[in-house]
């Protein structure tokens, strides 16, 4: 018994000593990193979406080239969970020293209207936007309607029977479907799934009538012939599907949800550092290797500067707010 007491004592002393040494010895200089010579340490990009998804893939492809342009290692760290809430919440609390940035994806808007979270998109310094994806109207290949108008006619004749799958409650596709339905004046049912992939599969298998998920998420099923793409809600036609009309061309002048991807940093990160990051990311986007990668994988390059990106998010956030309220979502 005495032996145990002695070794526990030694152990505790050791630990206490090291804690003291740590605090006394190194008062880490976390205040304003001198911009002369930034970056001096590796940079971490927090990625709220899970590994293997579109955002993750894009970040991991960008990282090595970004590393060349910044001269420091760039690490992509996934922090999935809570529809993005965990990752964004953690990123908002990171040190604003320029070594922590976060991938800002559309979920940063959606999740704030669904659950009680402790952040909003305004808690970040906005660096820039690099990519945008748009929703679609995708239906099962065997369905009787072949254009957006025919679909709307069908929906109007059968109110309350048309089912839209989406990637999750309060997510971009859910909101887009709600906005689409309210604008078109049709009465639909929303069925949430766990992600864009499963919602696309539901349409391919004929278990629901339609989905607003992106062309990318539906691509496999369009190519296997199980689904057909009726329209894309984007400003211009998608080069991979040149025959598919945009929403506007198909007669639907509707609100666009932009599923964006961009970068942000915790509030308080010095503007000079933001500028350096912005330049480096821009340079990376123009690198031929990245241009090639993005083209092959269907990521369009849609660059917006920090302030413009912020404005976009503010506009989109309003759509999310209005539709979420109409759907009855949100903090009770």
């Amino acid at each position, binding site marked *: 018994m005495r032996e145990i007491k002695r070794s526990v004592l030694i152990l505790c002393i050791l630990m206490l000593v090291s804690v003291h040494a740590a605090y006394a010895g190194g008062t880490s200089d976390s205040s304003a990193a001198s911009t002369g010579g930034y970056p001096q340490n590796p940079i971490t990009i927090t990625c709220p979406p899970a*590994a*293997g*998804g*579109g955002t*993750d*893939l894009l970040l*991991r*492809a960008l990282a090595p080239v970004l590393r060349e342009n910044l001269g420091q290692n760039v690490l992509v*760290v*996934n*922090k*999935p*969970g*809570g*529809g993005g*809430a*965990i990752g964004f*919440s*953690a990123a908002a609390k990171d040190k604003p020293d320029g070594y922590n940035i976060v991938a800002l994806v559309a979920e940063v808007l959606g999740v704030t209207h*669904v*659950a*009680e*979270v*402790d952040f909003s998109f305004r808690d970040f310094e906005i660096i820039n936007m690099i990519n945008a994806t748009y929703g679609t109207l995708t239906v099962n290949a065997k369905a009787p309607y072949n254009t957006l108008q025919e679909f709307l006619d069908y929906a109007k004749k059968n109110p*309350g*029977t048309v*089912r839209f799958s989406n990637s*999750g*409650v*309060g997510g971009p596709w859910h909101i887009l479907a709600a906005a689409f339905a309210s604008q078109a004046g049709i009465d639909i*049912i*929303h*069925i*949430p*799934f*766990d992600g864009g*992939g*499963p919602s696309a*599969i*539901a349409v*391919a*298998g*004929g*278990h*629901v009538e339609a989905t607003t998920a992106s062309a990318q998420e539906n*691509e*496999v*099923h369009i*190519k*296997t*012939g*199980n689904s057909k793409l009726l329209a894309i809600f984007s400003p211009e036609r998608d080069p991979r599907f040149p025959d598919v009309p945009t929403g506007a061309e198909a007669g639907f002048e509707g609100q666009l949800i932009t599923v964006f991807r961009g970068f942000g940093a915790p509030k308080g990160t010095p503007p000079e550092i933001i500028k350096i990051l912005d330049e480096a990311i821009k340079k990376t986007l123009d690198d031929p290797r990245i241009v090639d990668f993005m083209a*092959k*994988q269907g990521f369009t390059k849609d660059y917006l500067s920090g302030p413009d990106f912020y404005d976009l998010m503010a506009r989109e956030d309003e759509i999310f707010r209005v539709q979420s309220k109409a759907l009855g*979502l*949100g903090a*009770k």
Partner: protein
Amino acid sequence: MALEVLSLTFDPITLLTILVGVTAGISIGAMPGLTSTMGIALLMPLTFAMEAHTGMMLLIGEFVGAIYGGSITAILINTPGTPSAAATVLDGYPFTKRGESGRAIGISTVASFGGGIISGIIMILVAPVLANIALKFSAPETFALAFFGISIISSISGKSLLKGLFSGAIGLTLALIGVDNITGFTRFAFGSTFLMGGLAVIPVMVGLFAMSQCFLSIEELEATNVITQKIKSALPTKQDLKTIWPTILRGGLTGTFIGIIPGAGGDISAFVSYDMERRVSKHPELFGTGLPEAIAAPESSNNGTTGGALIPLLTLGIPGDSNTAVMLGALMIHNLIPGPMLFVQQAAVVDTLFIGFMIANVFMLILGLLGIPLFVKIVQVPRKILVPVIIVLCLVGSYAINNNYLDVVVMLVAGVIGYALVKGGFPLSPIVLALILGPMAEGNLRRSLVMSKGSVMIFFERPISAAFIVIAVVCLFLPIIKRWIVMYRNFKKSSAA
């Protein structure tokens, strides 16, 4: 074309990649906290620079290896290295307690190999036909499968059904934590952003099994430290092989089928096969004490899902389980667009993948068997050294999943709970089963009801879901009905006498 396939497959770089993949897979699978899916996600960026078939082979090799690798720690230290090995602890660890860990690992290796080969054969021969089943699966079918899975809790409860149900209830309650997928309503989160995401299965599993096992071992630090493991019986005996080959057949087929079902993978199929084996066994009461077929069933089944899950992935672009879901991304990056076109336009690559899959299984068999002496030595390390190291491994593994510190806290808490439960004689496996299947069942139940606009008939109008539900109900009530029949007969006998 055959020549092209052969040259692609037996190219030394390809073979080396497969070997690396399988080795990495076994290591990742064996490490508590790291899962096969994580391994694929982590290895994927490495494949960007490789050619399509080589890159995919790395990932497929990891897949095959990791599903097998989980059984190693399950057998040696009563901790599943991956969720698909959660059923292997039931009979695997008793082998180690008897000193026969080598035999157990051998059985597991052979069974895994068998299951994998069976799924590979099915994949090669009948992929397109079977793939269409995947398309018919949606929320109602998935719910029915989960419902069936939960009914298995009775089978894995060991001696006390009541305690098993209690464990299951604990698991279901834990599964409730988080944001409800259908309405966005937050449950049991107490205002914490972290809890909003729900409890991840891995930290809970690692904590329940590994940490509690460590605590139990700490109690016995001073005791005669080590159970000497018999090296002589390092390989499964001929008798063992004779006993388990029907099991492997059953497990491999079950695993392949469940692998085809989108969203259902090794973790579910292992339990289903364990349960099935117990029902067809001549001595079901011996399950849990260390029977060869009780290891062979889950292991052949979980490796059976590897080939099974690849079927809908390649033919329809529908992932059969979480591993193949990540692989879908890899396929797209390497320009291998799933679908009938893949088989026509890139037939050589597809055939290479098929053959590579078989080779991966062979490598797994060889590595596994060769590694037995090494694995067995691990158990013979004195507990005083082993326990601290394992604790650190568990901590690191739990953190590595989501880079989240709080997962480590979850693991520790689960460890304390697990320790208490084991002391109280409660089985731990039902908790894991409930944690995995609970959300699946509830989410899909409600999704189905929305799809059917509130009609419960949706489950019975669709043939596949109806079938599963009927099977589940029958399985649940069969033992009770049997008992009634026996009681009735006894009653008749005693009144006739």
